[in-house]
């Protein structure tokens, strides 16, 4: 096995706190009472509901669809009765149309999991034609489950002028606390490799890689052993450094290719997929199971029984906290996603979507203190920025409404990883200002277009 790989400059080490859940097997969780399934869980246009209030639905049934290219179908994640189709607040504070399903009794919620009797296909088994694969993936409503929620069937569509030669499965999972990919790599290794091989053959790539940071020894062991069965796939060990999970940095580390600025990985012949997405592809292609659940981590120092759970999409956050035994202290904050890039909320009714990687309850001592003292120009933010930006300067521009200068210094190239904020000794909320900067830059661009339509 080749040595440990990493991207060349920038990045930082975080307190990982993964030991809380790395050894707890994924627990199957049924919906408690009701789920609210958002009709928009992907980049692009929202789906239209194909059921209406009062309908009986069963798990896996199609409930939302849209013929638009960039959308992904939505399926019922539990059996029950549709009680309403209404707007609910999402984690990004947008109000999104949701199909609310009141669960029927637990017995017939049992979803079509992979039948233990049907063996997972191996390297020798055939993969359907690319068009067939894309059709099954589209029907299963699969999106990128790492966060971006890009519809996967679109990603598997190869453009003629940019042939793909390598597929990377992103098992870096560099966010602290989160261990979903870690567990999946250990528990569902065969399906992961099968999924990777399906992707590889569908887009006509030669090689596939499963990349994992060395802070997950059990997962590394699992993927390394499994790789021996697959002649064209291999396991890659990554150094532990935040943010290895960022697509462009993963590519740089694994293949030493640099994705040109403002371009997609395809430009260098690579597609990156999430661990869970690859497993979902196996389920969809080989077992015809739609994407209705996801595995996520519920962790944090104030959670009494932190663990990894497979939960129906649409489950309210509150149910997850309950499933993990609830908090042990009263004073905590709820973060959806990882503590680096996730969002803070106090609304426990927000539903889990296909791209929710976990929730973390953080204690006061761990709160990012936002005292925001003056910038002492120490340069630490510059030295950790994996995009080689100058966050100190960009944020100064943003705060002085100098958007053009901020753009010139690359505000739009920021990947919002938060490494700069994490290390800033003056506790400046750089990431927050960078987000503001991006939003302002977008509206400035909009304004320019409006005034000067080409």
């Amino acid at each position, binding site marked *: 096995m080749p040595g440990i790989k990493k991207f060349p400059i920038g990045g930082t080490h975080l307190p990982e706190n993964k030991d809380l859940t790395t050894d707890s097997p994924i627990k199957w969780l049924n919906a408690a009472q009701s789920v609210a399934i958002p009709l928009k869980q992907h980049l692009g246009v929202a789906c239209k509901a194909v059921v209406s209030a009062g309908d009986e639905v069963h798990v896996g049934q199609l409930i939302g669809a849209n013929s638009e290219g960039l959308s992904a179908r939505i399926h019922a994640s539990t059996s029950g009765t549709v009680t309403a189709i209404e707007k609910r607040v999402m984690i990004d504070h947008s109000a999104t149309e949701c199909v609310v399903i009141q669960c029927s009794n637990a017995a017939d919620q049992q979803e079509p999991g992979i039948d233990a009797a049907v063996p997972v296909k191996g390297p020798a088994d055939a993969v359907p034609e690319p068009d067939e694969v894309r059709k099954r993936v589209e029907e299963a409503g699969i999106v990128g489950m790492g966060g971006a929620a890009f519809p996967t069937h679109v990603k598997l569509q190869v453009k003629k002028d940019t042939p793909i030669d390598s597929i990377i499965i992103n098992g870096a999972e560099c966010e602290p606390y989160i261990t979903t990919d870690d567990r999946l790599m250990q528990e569902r290794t065969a399906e992961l490799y099968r999924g990777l091989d399906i992707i590889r053959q569908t887009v006509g790539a030669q090689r596939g890689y499963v990349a994992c940071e060395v802070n997950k020894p059990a997962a590394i062991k699992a993927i390394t052993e499994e790789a021996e069965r697959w002649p064209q796939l291999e396991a890659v060990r990554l150094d532990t450094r935040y943010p290895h999970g960022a697509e462009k940095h993963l590519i740089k580390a694994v293949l030493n290719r640099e994705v040109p600025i403002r371009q997609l990985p395809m430009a260098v012949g690579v597609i990156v997929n999430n661990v869970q997405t690859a497993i979902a592809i196996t389920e969809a292609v080989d077992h015809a199971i739609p994407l209705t659940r996801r595995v996520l981590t519920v962790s944090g120092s104030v959670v009494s029984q932190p663990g990894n759970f497979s939960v129906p999409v649409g489950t309210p956050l509150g149910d997850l906290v309950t499933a993990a035994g609830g908090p042990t202290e009263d004073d905590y904050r709820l973060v959806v996603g990882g503590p680096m890039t996730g969002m803070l909320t106090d609304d426990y009714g927000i539903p889990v979507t296909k791209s929710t990687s976990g929730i973390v309850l953080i204690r006061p001592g761990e709160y990012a203190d936002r005292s925001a003292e*003056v910038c002492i120009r120490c340069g630490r933010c510059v030295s950790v920025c994996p995009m*080689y930006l100058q966050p100190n300067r960009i944020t100064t521009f943003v705060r002085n409404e100098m958007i053009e200068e901020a753009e010139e210094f690359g505000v739009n190239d920021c990947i919002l990883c938060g490494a700069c904020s994490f*290390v800033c000794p003056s506790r400046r909320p750089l990431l927050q200002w960078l987000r503001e900067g991006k939003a302002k830059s977008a509206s400035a661009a909009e304004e320019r277009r409006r005034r000067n339509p080409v």
Partner: protein
Amino acid sequence: MSLQYSSTGPHIHSQDSIARTMWSIAVALLPATVVSAWLFGPYALYLIFATAVASALIEMPLNGDGFSLRFPLGDGSAFIAGMILGLSLAPTSAWWVPIVGAALMVVVGKYVFGGLGNNIFNPALVARAILLLSWPYQITRWVSPLDGTTSATPLGGLEVGYLELFLGNVPGSLGETSVVALLLGAAFLIVRGLISWRVPLSVLGGAAVAAVLFGLDPLFTLLSGSIMFGAVFMATDMVTSPTGKTSHLVYGAGCGFLTVVIRRYTAYPEGITFAFLIMNGLAYLMDRLGADPIFGQVEERKRRVYRAALLVGAVALMALLTVAGFAGRAFVADRYVEAELERSIVAGYPTATRIVQATAYDPQVSIYRVYEDRQLLGYYARTRVNGYGGPMQITALLDEHDKLTSVVVGEHAETPTIGTQVRSGGFLEQFAGFGPDDRDGLLDEVEFITGATVSSRAVISGVERILAARDEDAAAPDEPDAALADLEDGVFEGSGRGYAGDIVVTVTVEGGRVSAIEIQSHSETPGIGDRAMDTMADRIIDAGSLAVDAVSGATGSSRGLSAAVEDALSGN
């Protein structure tokens, strides 16, 4: 889609804070502090901590955080800057220097610009610069460590070995003398991730390159003076240095290079204060122009490499041209000057057969001894003085008894109608007959040209200077006939008084010229005196004259050797 920015991450944070950063720097300063207390005594501790505490106190009312928990040391930034300033003081600084320095640092260096994070120039250096310009004596009186005698610093001409420089047992500022203590501090800072190795290393690199270019000993340059201290604790000052990786390198190299330029070409033996201040002023520009390409700017990176290569090429070419120009011009100018000089001397002494340049004790005066065979005809001397309109060249001819025979005003820039009259025979004739002994009478006895007081006075001062130089020249021991020609063959022994005792030599004369000088015994400093004597012996043999320049830094040994050779040949 509305985003509430305050709910975005990161929700965890590294344990670092401004205060932690600052106190870590204090830890890094400890080795240097301890060493300075050991070398220079407890007063060193007073100087260092008085500056630090005074800085913190003076900052208290200014930082607007007067009565919070962090009272009274604030975030520690003033305390640290104070320690750094304290460590850069001379061990004998007066008791008030720390306090005045601290006030200058906090008020002028920091709060005039708006406080922590906003100052353009390193506050400690600002304070140091003001102190240096206002009280040069108080802050540059150096003493030897441990025994406390007043002494020059190695940069001021003291001869010391590398090991002493490394350990710090040499005179200098409190914190700068011990390189080993500074390296300890640097290692700590780099390991803690508080400074990037790029800055100190490029400072040293820039200084070494400059040293090689200007013909200095690079290792000595790095080990002596404040370069090491500055590289570790001053160039890395966060607020006033750039933040990018490339700009770190450029900035550091600039600091080091400029320091050596200032050491070499200005009146200040230590250049870091002004060099670093200049670079501070450029830090922002460097971050702006030297921003590293963004990850993914593949083309841009290639372009930069190409451009950097072009730049290096262009600079190299320019350097080559400049050097060639200089060499060519010096060559031509030397030839011209020599020819002109010879013409002019021969015009004054038509029978001259041999001209020997005498050692100039006053560097502004050049004196030539003029001989007809072995017979001294007199002295020919030149100097430059500032007249009314600019520099003026004064030439004086003296006879063998050191009496002026004539004075000539050469190139000048005086006003054509009146000032020029100083060139008139009537005015210049008045100087004839004066000698070194009665030069004090010149001012009274020479009549000024009416309306051209400044020009007249300038000529008189030039003549005075020449006579003074002649006076010292005549009094010097290795006089008068320095030329070693037409000697009797044989081996002769002689002795002379050196720096530390008598030097005994044997001189071999073959074919009328000295062919070998051997040192029989001496008690000069090993490594310095003996090397200087060997050099002198070579110089004397090569020149065929005793009138050669002494080896700088070992004048005593050099003179002693000349005296011994002269003694050996005295019967000749």
